[in-house]
């Protein structure tokens, strides 16, 4: 009965989504306030019914209702409760339902926080979001119904893929989807502005916080996904250039470009048509990612079950949405070009270069992701070109981006005087060069050109990001020194610097070693001794495992004990490696059990990963920067930004300088 309620709610949600997609757009066109208000109510109702539907599916999982096909395939009686909940979004149908839930939640948030916007504009935004909901609801109901029944129900379910039975994976998809779906808001703002043809700087101001929030969640989602792959896949890598990873990374790159381009549009009224195009592209790539992952068109280690009808549906939807948006764009964009100029040495130039490089990076990732398909169409086999290509291709646009990033932060809008330009950056540049060479050389004992370039780049970003906060701290106490936007930007860039350092050091100085170990045996890797003290059998709720007790010592001193496991899950019978990881701020020691090789001996993979934490920590700091930037007070005011009141000449000057950094 409950699953039927879920199914029925989903159908009602579709009806309301249609109303939400049609009424406000029509109302805005005819200037009919009643219809526009009705759109908001429909959005609330849609959210309510989708939430009921989601709750019903969760109920079916919690009660192990195996008469529901999706539950029977992805759950099992002895599955821990936490994973019964996360199994709701553990596969295609449920994750699609979660996508819809998040989309309607974003819509409600837009409806609630957009009261300060002109009614016609916010109504169009809600209408566009409603049309997107219609597409996804149809997708769910027609091809991917999570409530399909299975008669007769089996006694027990097929279990959730053991790879997904992990806390990291429980929160990774929701965060990622909040980010993906969040770009639909930027998309809807762009469409609404193009429909009305009224695209001024206020539009950019309204769009910015939404985009930043979406970007922030996407950053977190990708970082947690990478962290999960690191410890759960048991290989010790943190990025595999897998099509599914690329599917989330391309919107991130374009979203990052969009954030920067929006800054130019808001402050200077420039790049309008370009910003629109990025807003459309960011969301289109989210859709493309969905298509690639769910259609089975590309081989991936974690692609969803493949079904050509789903592929066709999502591709048609993508075609309608993107082609529609781009026709609108081709019609409206030509009238948006601004004649405001900027000199060659200005912040505008740097942000333009930032955009070009990020778009190039995204294009390279797209080419790499689609290339197996091109080859397949030419030759008829599913093959992949793999990480070696990506690693090289990706560095090419990234290194110049990093150098320019540090410079751009300290360049004025419109025109920057050459004489004073580099002054504040001399010290950070010097520190970066010295540290970038000394740190790898002294601490890790080796230096190469690429290694020095990576470290200098990382320290350069960190140093140049700290200039603004430090200056405002030294010269003036209190809030006027640096705006939240400027502070958020500095912090996000700081996170980027930490990330670059982490990637560089771990790629260069990572040690790994496969060893055969007997009970009581000891091996040394990267100066650490690893002793396999004991092997024992342990029993989990739905798996049995062999656990090794590995003691780590350095120069005879105790460092820690690890408990790597080799688990066999009882239902699906597959073996999973649970790595034991000793975490420190500047290194990970990673031990994974391989296979038994002969009596009492095991193959053990031991890895030393210096600075790997900086990769995820850096991403976390980037997201924190986004959060701080969103809290800037000018996003809360309902009126257009009023001219700032001057507090004496000196105060104003500093403030302008700090704001220049946004």
């Amino acid at each position, binding site marked *: 009965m409950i699953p039927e309620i879920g199914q029925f709610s989903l159908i009602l949600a579709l009806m309301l989504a249609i109303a939400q997609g049609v009424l406000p757009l029509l109302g805005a066109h005819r200037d009919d306030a009643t219809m526009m208000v009705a759109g908001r109510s429909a959005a609330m109702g849609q959210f309510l019914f989708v939430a009921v539907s989601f709750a019903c599916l969760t109920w079916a999982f919690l009660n192990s209702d195996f008469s529901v096909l999706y539950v029977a395939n992805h759950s099992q009686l002895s599955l821990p409760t936490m994973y019964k909940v996360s199994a709701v979004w553990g596969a295609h149908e449920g994750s699609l339902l979660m996508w819809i839930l998040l989309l309607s939640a974003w819509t409600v948030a837009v409806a609630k926080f957009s009261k300060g916007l002109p009614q016609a504009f916010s109504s169009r935004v809600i209408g566009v979001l409603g049309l997107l909901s219609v597409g996804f609801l149809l997708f769910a109901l027609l091809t991917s119904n999570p409530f399909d029944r299975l008669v007769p129900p089996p006694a027990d379910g097929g279990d959730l893929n053991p790879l997904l039975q992990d806390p990291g994976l429980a929160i990774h998809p929701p965060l990622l989807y909040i980010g993906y779906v969040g770009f639909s808001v930027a998309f809807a703002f762009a469409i609404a502005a193009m429909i009305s043809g009224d695209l001024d700087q206020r539009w950019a101001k309204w769009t910015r916080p939404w985009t930043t929030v979406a970007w922030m969640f996407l950053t977190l989602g990708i970082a947690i996904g990478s962290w999960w792959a690191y410890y759960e896949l048991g290989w010790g890598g943190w990025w595999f250039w897998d099509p599914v990873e690329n599917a989330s990374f391309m919107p991130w790159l374009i979203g990052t470009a969009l954030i920067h381009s929006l800054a130019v549009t808001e402050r200077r009224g420039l790049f309008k048509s370009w910003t629109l195009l990025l807003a459309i592209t960011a969301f289109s790539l989210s859709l493309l990612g969905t298509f690639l992952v769910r259609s089975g068109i590309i081989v991936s280690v974690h692609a969803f079950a493949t079904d050509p009808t789903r592929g066709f549906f999502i591709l048609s939807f993508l075609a309608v949405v993107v082609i529609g948006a781009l026709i609108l764009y081709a019609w409206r964009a030509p009238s948006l070009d601004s004649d405001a100029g900027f000199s060659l040495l200005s912040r505008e130039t740097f942000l333009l270069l930032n955009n070009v490089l990020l778009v190039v990076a995204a294009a390279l990732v797209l080419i790499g992701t689609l290339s197996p398909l091109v080859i397949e169409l030419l030759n008829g086999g599913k093959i992949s070109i793999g990480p*070696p290509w990506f690693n090289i291709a990706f560095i090419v646009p990234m290194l110049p981006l990093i150098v320019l990033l540090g410079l751009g932060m300290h360049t004025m809008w419109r025109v920057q005087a050459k004489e004073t330009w580099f002054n504040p950056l001399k010290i950070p540049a010097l520190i970066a060069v010295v540290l970038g060479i000394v740190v790898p050389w002294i601490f890790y004992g080796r230096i190469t050109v690429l290694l020095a370039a990576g470290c200098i780049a990382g320290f350069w970003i960190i140093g140049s990001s700290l200039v603004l906060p430090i200056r405002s701290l030294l010269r003036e106490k209190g809030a006027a020194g640096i705006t939240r936007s400027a502070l958020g930007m500095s912090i996000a860039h700081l996170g980027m610097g930490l990330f670059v350092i982490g990637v560089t050091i771990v790629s260069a100085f990572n040690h790994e070693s496969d060893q055969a170990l007997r009970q009581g045996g000891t091996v040394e890797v990267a100066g650490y001794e690893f002793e396999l003290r004991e092997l024992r059998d342990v029993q989990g709720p739905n798996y049995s495992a062999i656990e090794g007790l590995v003691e780590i010592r350095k120069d005879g001193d105790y460092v820690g004990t690890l408990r790597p496991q080799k688990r066999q899950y009882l239902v699906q019978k597959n073996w999973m490696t649970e790595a034991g990881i000793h975490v420190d701020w500047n290194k990970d020691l990673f031990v994974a059990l391989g296979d038994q090789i002969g009596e009492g001996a095991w193959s053990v993979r031991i890895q030393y990963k210096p600075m790997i934490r900086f990769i995820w920590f850096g991403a976390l700091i980037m997201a924190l920067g986004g959060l701080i930037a969103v809290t800037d007070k000018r996003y809360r005011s309902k009126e257009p930004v009023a001219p700032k009141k001057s507090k004496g000449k000196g105060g104003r000057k500093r403030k302008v300088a700090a704001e220049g950094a946004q």
Partner: protein
Amino acid sequence: MNRYLWPLVAVIALIVFLVIGLTRGDPRALPSPFIGKPAPQFVLPTLEDPSVTVGSEQLSGQYSLVNVWATWCGGCRTEHPFLMDLSRSGAIPIYGINWRDNAPEAKRWLQQLGDPYVASGFDEDGRVGIDWGVYGAPETFLVDPQGIVVYKHLGPLDRTAWERDFVPLISGGGK
């Protein structure tokens, strides 16, 4: 043409391409320029023991398969069980070229999933892959007793492809 139309053109091209990708049947492999030519020369250290080498000389005297694989390649994981079956049946010796990979990971892969290869050469920088005209992994070459490449299969090898494309060449070539 209006420059604002270019994104639209690009997207339509991409969508057409994806539609073709989705509707493709099972197009047969195009002939490789290497087919009918002697197998490119190579000598590679084996994964198991870098002091031992495997090379093109071992390929003559009987039909053999040369399989290009890597741990980062999804299709390789797909075809691996079939390679194991084929190896167990003793139908044909399989030589591996572990292409642009990481040696510890590759060894681990063979330990965990089983090793269907007589030997796997470790082609770390992909040079041998270039000589063999490898686009990506997995690819499988059939080499005849005279050391001539007679067939190339792109993508995961399975029983259907094996019986349809390889078996006739092997049994037909023996007369």
